[in-house]
């Protein structure tokens, strides 16, 4: 049975990492649309998949944030990715199964997955 004392111990053991995160503000930023349209289309498991993939690969300087409806409901779930040195990329109709590939190719290797971007996805 997990206890909150365990969480406190975990916090202490990851302290170095936490401080590192705070200082290193130049990583990639993943933004997931989380309004009614996004949630209904499946945005929550997509957000969760990004969190878990980033955790699995120890990408400490990548942040994941949420946003409201951006008015393109038919393309939800929508994910925008900002990486230093690259233009913003908007992915449309994202599924959890695509997330590992997007993280590897785009965030780690700097090559966006153009087949999933909003311009290349059918309505």
């Amino acid at each position: 049975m997990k206890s909150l004392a365990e969480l406190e111990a975990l916090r202490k053991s990851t302290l170095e990492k936490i401080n590192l995160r705070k200082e290193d503000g130049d990583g990639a930023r993943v933004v997931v649309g989380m309004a009614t349209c996004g949630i209904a289309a499946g945005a929550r498991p997509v957000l969760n998949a990004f969190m878990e993939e980033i955790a699995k690969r120890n990408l400490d300087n990548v942040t994941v944030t949420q946003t409201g409806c951006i008015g393109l409901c038919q393309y939800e779930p929508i994910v925008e990715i900002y990486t230093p040195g690259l233009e913003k990329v908007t992915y449309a109709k994202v599924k959890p199964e695509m997330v590992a590939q997007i993280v590897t190719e785009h965030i780690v290797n700097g090559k966006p997955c153009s087949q999933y971007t909003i311009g290349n996805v059918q309505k």
Partner: protein
Amino acid sequence: MRELSLHILDIVQNSITAGAKLVIINIVEDINLDELVIEIIDNGKGMDDETIKRVMDPFYTTRTTRKVGLGIPLFKNAALTTGGKFYITSRQGSGTIETAVFKHSSIDRQPIGDMSQTMLTLMTGNENIDFLYYHRYVSGEQNDQFIFDTRQIKQALGGADVNVPEIYMWIKEYIQEGISNLYGGVQ
């Protein structure tokens, strides 16, 4: 939406938009009464009667032609299709209570779904808002509860970021374990 936990996520987003600082999510499953009650309580800005009428019945028209939202009607409908009920109690300047009652055994009742994802989505997206998730399960003699209070989590974290991978995963497992214990734990 196919899971009640997704409706909950969406309904709580309304509370956040309404400026709530604390949102309480109450889930009570009472097998003896064949009832599932979901209650969302916030201390946001509240709604006036006109707004309540509008959200309770999307076809209700007012003089002002404002965009009709979908979140509340969808949640209400999910309850009513099981033969359940839906209420809103709200006071401007104080807050809102939404109560959805489902027939637990109805084949039309959506599964509760993954509350760990809903709570983590809320928590990581809103550092300055507190969430209290309370889940009770009553069946025969059994009467157990699981409580997840982000204020306690924040205290244990002492200002550390929930987004740190190890911490995120720990919280996810903590919630999953707490809920699965309600249903009798790992067999």
